[in-house]
């Protein structure tokens, strides 16, 4: 395996990785509020829950290249179609986990939260979300890792990121370049996964669970 290209072009690869991460995080930042709105509708309005879950699930089954090709005529090239693609695919993981997390909280705990005199917003911010947080974060983790993988397609429509490296390696028949891109993308995904797992372990629920296991 030829790692020469990887080590000779570390600066460029690092720059592309950061760009890739920036695109991915931008997509996540857009995807999260969208997913939160869809999920809250699903949680509050019971009859809408299953249809919403089916819909985000169905969107995920569309082949990614086909969707990008479909978006180009109306959205052009660059960041816009890439972000639309990423935000769409992230929904299934985010919505599924936010809904599962929120509906998984013991109704008695929520009733007690109301009963002690919390306002609806306080119930959400002090009890409901904190208890659901580990499940939601797990969804964020899977969504972000998926986004990082899919964002390679951004290289195909000149959105930048590590996809540019990979596609140019393929187009110029330069296996060492492809390998370098591959190493970068896998590292990025693994580090992101690790970072969010770390975040999950800092939640109050994880702390309580550790205490419970001890004694």
């Amino acid at each position, binding site marked *: 395996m030829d790692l020469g290209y990887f080590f000779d072009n570390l600066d460029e690869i690092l720059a592309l990785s950061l760009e890739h991460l920036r695109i991915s995080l931008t997509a996540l930042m857009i995807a999260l509020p969208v997913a939160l709105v869809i999920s809250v509708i699903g949680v509050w309005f019971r009859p809408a829950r299953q249809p919403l879950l089916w819909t985000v699930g169905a969107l995920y089954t569309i082949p990614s290249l086909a969707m990008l090709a479909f978006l180009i005529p109306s959205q052009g090239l660059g960041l816009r179609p890439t972000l639309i693609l990423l935000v769409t695919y992230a929904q299934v993981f985010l919505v599924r986990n936010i809904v599962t997390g929120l509906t998984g909280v013991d109704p008695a705990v929520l009733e*007690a939260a109301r009963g002690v005199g919390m306002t609806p917003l306080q119930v959400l911010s002090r009890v409901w979300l904190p*208890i659901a947080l580990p499940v939601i974060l797990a969804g964020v983790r899977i969504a972000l890792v998926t986004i990082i993988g899919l964002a390679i397609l951004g290289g195909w429509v000149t959105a930048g990121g590590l996809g540019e490296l990979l596609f140019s390696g393929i187009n110029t028949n330069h296996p060492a370049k492809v390998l370098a891109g591959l190493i970068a993308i896998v590292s990025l995904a693994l580090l992101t996964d690790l970072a969010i797992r770390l975040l999950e372990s800092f939640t109050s629920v994880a702390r*309580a669970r550790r205490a419970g296991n001890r*004694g």
Partner: protein
Amino acid sequence: MAINQRSGTSGSSISIHALTKRYPGSSAAAVNAVDLDIAPGELIVLLGPSGCGKTTLLKMINRIYEPTSGSIVIDGVEVQSLKASELRRHIGYVIQQTGLFPHMRVAENVAVVPKLLKWDRDRTRERVSQLLELTGLPPEIYANRYPSQLSGGEQQRVGLARALAAEPPTMLMDEPFGALDAITRTRLQDELKRIHKQFSQTILFVTHDIEEAVRLADRIVVMREGRIVQVGSPLEIVREPADQFVSDLVGSQDVLRRLSLMPARTAMEPLNGTPPDLAQSISGEVFLREALSMLMESGDPFIAVTGSDGTAIGTLSMTSIQRAAAPPDAPNR
């Protein structure tokens, strides 16, 4: 704040008028035109089979459920005129499933209401230790534990401490001890009585357990199909059930059962002059069934009945127990 925040020395008066609750899609009212006046410091037990409306009635007081019609007035203030969250901060609330916040330590759970009321940190901390002591949970052992590290009885103690935190003049308790084993339940009932004696909150307590009702209640409210069937002291309910339904509920046809529901003080001959010198004595709060076995075991004709301070307040004989245990319609009553 519209509801008086007294220093835990007395309870609220509660006046319920023509209170009705209909759930959507159900033809019968869950609570049907109920009237009930509760004096400050009373411990009222709402008793009845499941589905009789007792829990619905309870949960309309702190507006977990909203009434279809009728009114609830606490200390002269209509509860519907208050913001629900404000109202609830001054009403202690204990439920059977405890509803402890699993991601918070015991101390944080108990501090929830003081925090909502924006007490300063020192006052809150002091109050939390005080409450943990009061509910039999030494703070140095329990303050930093999580609910999942506690037994069922300990969890419900935390639930009780959380409800008592801001010294609410009213407490609502929905079958709080229903999921506990018999020994733990009795112990917690005793502690609730002690706390009630000390602070005289007004307490509404829901149960379907007649023995629990008799142990705790100043007055028992028997409910059936959304209506109040009978209101009376435990003794009145056990001795003179208003109808067949109440009679079946309290099992008043069964003599032994009646004896196990009536405290000794209700059957004794009050003391006349100097206390007699009797070998055996029994607390006035102990049920007649136990007094009977003591009489039979000792073979003495009389045993002394003592008050809460330990001094004799009356005597009990076979005859007095027989008289007390006679069924409601017996001629010698």
